[in-house]
């Protein structure tokens, strides 16, 4: 038998797994071959050393430790089970129904509380009502502004008329426009051309009686609601392109109540960040006046909106003939 063959059978020889004939041949070779004896001795020493490796002692608390860990694991699973178990199973039906009713009642009461969050439909209705109320205020404040700016006797007279209202009536009017937020920013845009389409006053429009009185007063020499509506539509598209939206427009009823010149008004909201640029574009259309200082588009205004009340007035250039 060759050395290579004997060394390949060494494990089986040491395991006692060889048949008698093969084992005898291996042993015969080992008696003659010192190299294979050395190899087999090394293999045997390794085996003995591995088999004689000392046994480690089992800790005395081994089984208790298994119990403790099982208990901990069970407790953790129970803890999670409380959260993972459906609520409907743990609550009797009556208790669950009472809880649902209580939540519903709280929700309804909360909706009626001032300053509470409103559903979109309710919020839109309130916004529309506020816009209508403010529409009347628009005319009054616009008239006050014009009177203060031009000091025209008839306008001043109308302003006096407004101021001459009884305190209770005035406060009543104010109450109707009072809201949780700040007053809309009132802007008056004085146009020297009523329509963006042509450069002259539209002669087809019949001046209203109110317009006639205004013309006679000299402050606003002419208002022509129909052509101003074209400007209003242009204004609406400007508002939309600035990311805002028009809440309401009007040119009727306003003058009936205040006896103003029947101005075209636009109530709109605009992102605070767009306000400055929008006013610049507005100034390109005509002379603008604002009721109060325009707030700067500060970073803290990011995401906020401003409510604008824009009043359009047509006033032809000095010396031009509107008719």
């Amino acid at each position, binding site marked *: 038998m060759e050395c290579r063959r004997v060394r390949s059978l060494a*494990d089986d020889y*040491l*395991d*006692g797994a060889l048949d008698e004939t093969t084992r005898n041949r291996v042993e015969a070779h080992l008696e003659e071959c010192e190299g294979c004896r050395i190899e087999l001795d*090394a*293999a045997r*020493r*390794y*085996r003995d*050393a*591995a*088999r*004689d*490796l*000392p*046994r*480690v*002692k*089992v*800790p005395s608390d*081994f*089984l208790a*430790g*298994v119990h403790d*860990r*099982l208990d901990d*694991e069970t407790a953790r699973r129970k803890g999670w089970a409380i959260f993972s178990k459906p609520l409907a199973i743990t609550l009797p039906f009556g208790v669950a129904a009472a809880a649902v009713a209580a939540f519903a009642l709280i929700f309804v009461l909360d909706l009626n509380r001032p300053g509470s969050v409103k559903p979109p439909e309710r919020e839109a209705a309130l916004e529309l009502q506020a816009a209508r109320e403010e529409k009347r205020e628009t005319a009054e404040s616009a008239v006050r502004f014009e009177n203060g700016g031009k000091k025209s006797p008839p306008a001043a007279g109308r302003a006096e008329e407004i101021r001459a209202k009884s305190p209770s009536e005035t406060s009543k009017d104010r109450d109707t426009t009072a809201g949780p937020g700040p007053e809309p920013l009132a802007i008056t845009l004085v146009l020297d051309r009523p329509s963006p389409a042509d450069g002259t006053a539209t002669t087809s429009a019949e001046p209203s009686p109110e317009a006639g009185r205004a013309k006679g007063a000299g402050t606003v020499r002419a208002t022509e609601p129909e052509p101003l509506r074209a400007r209003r539509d242009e204004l609406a598209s400007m508002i939309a392109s600035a990311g805002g939206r028009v809440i309401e427009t009007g040119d009727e009823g306003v003058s009936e109540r205040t006896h103003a010149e029947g101005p075209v008004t636009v109530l709109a909201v605009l992102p605070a960040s767009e306000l400055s640029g929008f006013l610049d574009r507005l100034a390109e259309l005509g002379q603008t006046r604002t009721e109060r200082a325009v707030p700067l588009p500060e970073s803290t205004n990011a995401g906020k909106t401003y409510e604008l009340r824009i009043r359009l007035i047509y006033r032809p250039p000095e010396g031009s003939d509107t008719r």
Partner: protein
Amino acid sequence: MDRKTQEGRKNGRVGSAGESEARGDGVRNDAALVERFRGGDIAAFDALVLRHQEKIMNLCFRMLGDYEDAKDCAQDTFIKVYRSLGGFRFESAFSTWLYRIAVNTCKNRLASSRKRKRLTATQPEFADPPSPLLTPEEEMEKRERERELQRAIEALREDFRTLVVLRDVEGLSYEEVSRITGLALGTVKSKLARARDRLRADLKGRL
């Protein structure tokens, strides 16, 4: 001559001819305990732990080389057994199933310990007292040889280490090693031959 019959085995190791009947009894005892546990007798689980804890603790220590890690893994093994015993279908012996769980638990621990390695291994407490036949110097030399062998086993790649521990340290039969590892018998033998060659080369002149 059959060395197995000549040498016998130490306590806790299996495989001698004289122990085969005991093993047969052990298998029957394991099966009876498993059935008792399934019947609601929690004490039967304790009996299973006490019967096998020494073998599993030593297997884990030789696989991991750290006493505390070995204790954790051995306890993990029995916790997994507790959780899974209801689904055990006796397709293999309980001990084979138990060893398989222990080996897999150790492999998982080895994979995770590659990420967080202990700075120093916790030293074991040995079951056997020092031999009265050896002088203190001889005893010290023996311990040093054992540490060398343990370090060489730990240096083996994982599959070689598993086979060496199961066969050469724990003394399980090739067939049982094959059942535990899921490797074919021929693969077990050829891999073991390569593992032993590597160990002998590593320990040349030190055993």
